[in-house]
């Protein structure tokens, strides 16, 4: 019996290590999309993984783990954004660190446009913002986004449309 318990514990540890490797970028990106600060985003993502570790027994399913991690990371990032004064002295992701943009959009995706876009996204209602960010994360795959958010696909599609429309009106 103790050997069985030990083997289960080992399996849980191994699974969690795999989840950490698979989902580190996802948690970081979710946090970064809210906080726009790499340091803060890493802190929040790390905290989300610690919480996930505490619940590792209930989060053995990979898809469930992913969705849970995204929701918790989002909530932690929003909490930090609201409570922290770091919002004012945030460090925007340097343009040089980003992958090169296609030449057709080079003018549009300037630093100034990116800042305007970030402000417009922050001004969105939270439920729209979450759908927008996660849809972007998932390459605008509605089904994947719906799974992550635990929402009907139609709701995700509708919210994404509203969010993009609002952004277009603000940035036009």
């Amino acid at each position, binding site marked *: 019996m103790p050997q069985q318990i030990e083997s289960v514990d080992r399996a849980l540890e191994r699974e*969690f290590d795999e989840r*950490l*490797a698979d989902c*580190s*970028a996802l948690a*970081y*990106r*979710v946090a*970064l*999309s809210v906080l*726009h600060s*790499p340091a803060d*985003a*890493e802190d929040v*993502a*790390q905290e989300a*993984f*610690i919480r996930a*570790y*505490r619940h590792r027994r209930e989060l053995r399913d990979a898809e469930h783990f992913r969705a849970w991690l995204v929701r918790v990371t989002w909530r932690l990032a929003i909490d930090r954004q609201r409570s922290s004064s770091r919002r004012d002295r945030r460090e925007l*992701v340097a343009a040089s*660190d*980003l*992958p090169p*943009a*296609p030449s057709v*959009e080079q003018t*549009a*995706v300037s630093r100034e*446009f*990116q800042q305007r*876009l*970030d402000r417009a*996204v922050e001004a969105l209602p939270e439920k729209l913002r979450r759908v*927008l*960010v996660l849809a*972007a*994360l998932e390459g*605008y795959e509605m089904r994947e986004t719906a799974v992550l958010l635990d929402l009907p696909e139609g709701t995700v599609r509708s919210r994404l*449309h509203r969010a*993009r*429309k609002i*952004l*277009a*009106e603000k*940035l*036009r």
Partner: protein
Amino acid sequence: MNCKRYQNWIPEAALGALGASRQAQLDAHVLACPACARALEAERRLLAAIDQGLARNVAAQPSAEFAARVRMRLAEEREQMRPSAGWLPGRPILVTFAALAALAALVLAVRFVQRAPQRTQLTTPSAPIRTATPSARELATVTRPPARALLPAPTHRASGTVAHGSEGARSGRENQTPQLQVLVRPGQWAGITALYRAAQSGRVDTSSLAERPAMDLDPLQVPPVEIKPLVTAALEAPKPLNSSEAEDIDTQGDKHENPQ
């Protein structure tokens, strides 16, 4: 050409959300209207820029040290979750023992405090409590005679055994006071019995004793005990107590304390 109507449709068309009928009308219109065609193209570029800006925001990678830092935190978390973390092997036993010792000391202290007034009542004001009490054979347990007039005050014998006075007599609540038991030596019992009988028959005046003030003394201050020679001229040599006499006294005492 009504461009205003088509321009209202352009944002929805750029989002891909225009109805099929309107989409067909707009497509036909932009073929003939360069201004609306430019507006539609601008709208599509804007949305593409938005999507690309969002994608750039979520395309970043955490630092190379991120996973290592998370694993370090996880190691700390595992240490905290381990039940025996931070405990020495024998520590729980020591703590348990210390807790039990403290509890025992507390119980003893409480019992001592609760008993202290009772002990004072039983012995005050005659003598300090004896620690080396006579053996069971030396002592006879009797019920105190009820007469407040007879034995109102404690009497201290030379041997140190205590014949106690009446708590009820002092408080004036005889009916509520339960019988008190006192321990005397068998030899002393004969004298007490003789005194009791003499008082009953009127040969001894106990009124002066009865009128003595109640002894509301500080329990810690033991006053000197006055032992006056008892004048009992008619008293003959004391006889050993037999059980029928003791029962007789007990019965009378019961009647006195329970008048009904």
